[in-house]
């Protein structure tokens, strides 16, 4: 399918009713992503059964726009409450929440909203124009390159961890170890399940991730609240709804463009998705930005980088889905389910048999961006006002939402057990100076690292040369080394001064 034909399909997919569904999808996406405990993929899978009765084109537009909305929605609680809605928003919480505490709540949400729309829209345009090239990237990424890319993601820990670097590495190791629990993709045998058959498929990712990034943070706030028993919100009277200006956003354009490209490349890779993209983008943004040394104090670049990257993942993650039938992220896997339910098989023949599906998905992503701006802008004030809810109400509501989110996975009460265990472990780790966010990064990348390392070794018959001979792998490994060295030097510099 040529780019021109794809554009024709995109225009053909447009209908007023489709626009309504895009609004619905974006709104549910923002709302679902913003509920702590409901990740982007869970929000989509909850909406999936409703799309069966719909016209396929509208159904795909709804799912695609829901995906776009959820990637932004997760940043709302990250910024306002420091409780990330989805793991991809964890880096946003660092600076976003700080900016909110500095009294610029509206601006913090604004950077995330405009950044997210920018990432998905221009990422989507590039996706349409370079569909063929992106497909080739996906095929070029052999196991060794995938391993190197995952390794690159892990290296983000260097610049993320404050204080003792060994503790940062330990945190990430614990995450990788947690990820090895369950069935080994390679040999099919179960490992480290401690006799619990529920762990046979591994530690369920949504409750584990939500427990480490969101619930452990919330525990700290709840414990403070129980000690202090404040009955009014500390933000009362300090709420600020001022939105960002175009000029303010353009001040971050360098970081935004770089993050978009990182989001696109990482999004194409099967199995990684938005989480790794936003961590890499935050890490690299720190080096690119002129405010790099101020990351962590609430600077715009630090919000824009991860938010652009995770939204740019959306158009990229659907590329391998539409061209091979292989989803680039768990959310794209839900989209696959939606297509199969409508009797379509994503793959090389989709462009011939159901070209309208391609048009619908891309139109859904592109249309979702202006809708996201509108809906996000309209809902900005109510969201900020949430922080004015008395803290004892707000904390309780979030606790209940975390639990119900785990139950919504339909894996039974065991998922709630995982959530509570990870929340407790995350809180204790934070006390002892370890970093639960790094643990999540390790957990999310664990299988990618191990499987691809082992597959590479098996294909090369045990030779390590394969990491040097493949050009993409070599470049990625050199980038990782560079990023670690620069990160280490930056850590030493402020320590001396």
């Amino acid at each position, binding site marked *: 399918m040529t780019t021109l034909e794809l554009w024709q399909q995109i225009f053909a997919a447009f209908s007023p009713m489709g626009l309504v569904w895009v609004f619905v999808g974006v709104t549910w996406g923002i709302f679902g992503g913003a509920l702590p405990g409901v990740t982007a993929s869970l929000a989509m899978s909850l909406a999936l059964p409703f799309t069966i009765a719909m016209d396929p084109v509208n159904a795909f537009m709804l799912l695609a726009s829901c995906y776009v909305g959820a990637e932004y929605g997760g940043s709302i609680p990250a910024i306002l409450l420091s409780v990330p809605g989805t793991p991809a928003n964890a880096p946003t919480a660092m600076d976003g929440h700080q900016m909110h505490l500095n009294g610029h709540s509206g601006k913090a949400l604004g950077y995330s909203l405009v950044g997210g729309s920018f990432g998905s829209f221009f990422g989507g345009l590039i996706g349409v124009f370079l569909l063929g090239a992106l497909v080739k990237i996906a095929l070029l990424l052999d196991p060794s390159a995938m391993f190197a890319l995952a390794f690159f993601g892990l290296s983000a820990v260097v610049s993320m961890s404050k204080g003792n670097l060994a503790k940062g590495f*330990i945190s990430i190791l614990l995450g990788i170890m947690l990820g090895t629990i369950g069935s080994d993709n390679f040999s099919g045998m179960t*490992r480290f399940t401690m006799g619990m058959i529920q762990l046979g498929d591994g530690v369920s990712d949504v409750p584990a991730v939500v427990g480490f990034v969101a619930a452990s943070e919330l525990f700290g706030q709840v414990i403070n*609240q*129980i000690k202090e028993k404040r*009955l009014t919100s500390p933000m009362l009277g300090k709420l600020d709804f001022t939105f960002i200006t175009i000029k303010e956003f353009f001040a971050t354009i360098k970081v935004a463009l770089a993050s978009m490209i990182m989001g696109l490349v990482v999004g194409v890779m099967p199995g990684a998705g938005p989480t790794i993209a936003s961590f890499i983008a935050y890490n690299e943004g720190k080096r690119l930005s002129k405010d790099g040394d101020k990351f962590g104090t609430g600077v715009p670049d630090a919000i824009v980088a991860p938010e652009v990257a995770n939204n740019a993942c959306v158009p990229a993650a659907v590329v391998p889905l539409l061209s091979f039938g292989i989803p680039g992220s768990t959310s794209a896997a839900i989209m696959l389910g939606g297509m199969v339910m409508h009797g379509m098989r994503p793959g090389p023949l989709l462009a011939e048999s159901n070209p309208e599906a391609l048009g619908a998905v891309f139109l859904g992503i592109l249309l979702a961006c202006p809708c996201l701006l509108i809906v996000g802008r309209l809902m900005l004030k109510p969201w900020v006002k949430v922080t004015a809810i008395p803290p004892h109400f707000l904390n*309780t509501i979030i606790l*209940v939402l975390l*639990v119900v989110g785990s139950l919504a996975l339909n894996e039974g009460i065991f998922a709630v057990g995982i959530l509570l265990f990870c929340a407790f472990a995350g809180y204790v780790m934070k006390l002892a100076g370890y970093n639960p966010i790094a643990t999540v990064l390790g957990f999310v990348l664990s299988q990618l690292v191990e499987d691809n*390392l082992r597959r590479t070794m098996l294909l090369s018959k045990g030779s390590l040369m394969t990491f040097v001979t493949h050009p993409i792998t070599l470049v990625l490994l050199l980038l990782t080394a560079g990023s670690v060295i620069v990160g280490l030097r930056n850590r030493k510099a402020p320590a001396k001064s």
Partner: protein
Amino acid sequence: MSKKKYLDMISSVFLILLGAIYFYAASKLPAPLTKEPLGPAGFPQFLAILLIGLSISVLVRAVLDKSESNNSPTSFTARDFKILIILMITLILYAAGIWYVGYIVSTFAFCCVCFWLMGAPLDKPIKILVPSLIIAIACFVLFGLLFKADLGSGFLF
């Protein structure tokens, strides 16, 4: 026990033990079906060795370092610890309640307890009971009825 130094020492000893148990569990894994350079145990064992090594470095540093910051008390007090335990017990009871009693009833009870723990005054019980009921029913309607999630199979709702 509230000094940063001791926290580091306890955590690193715990991690060394964890690494050792993990390594042992990995070595007990049966041989793989497919011959490969790294078996199902190879990667985990590598992780365990790294973990033990890094934990030892944390331990050594904590023992040797006599600087002020290392000996300063952490902000975590015995009272915090007590509250953390109470919070965990409440949550575990909540989870058990969902499973054995039912979603709406236990969410309602959990909310009431949380409001009380977090300082809501008891002289106006309406201000505790009504929001709790609203939260419980809203979650049930959204997730249980609309999204058909399985919210447990207790004998009450």
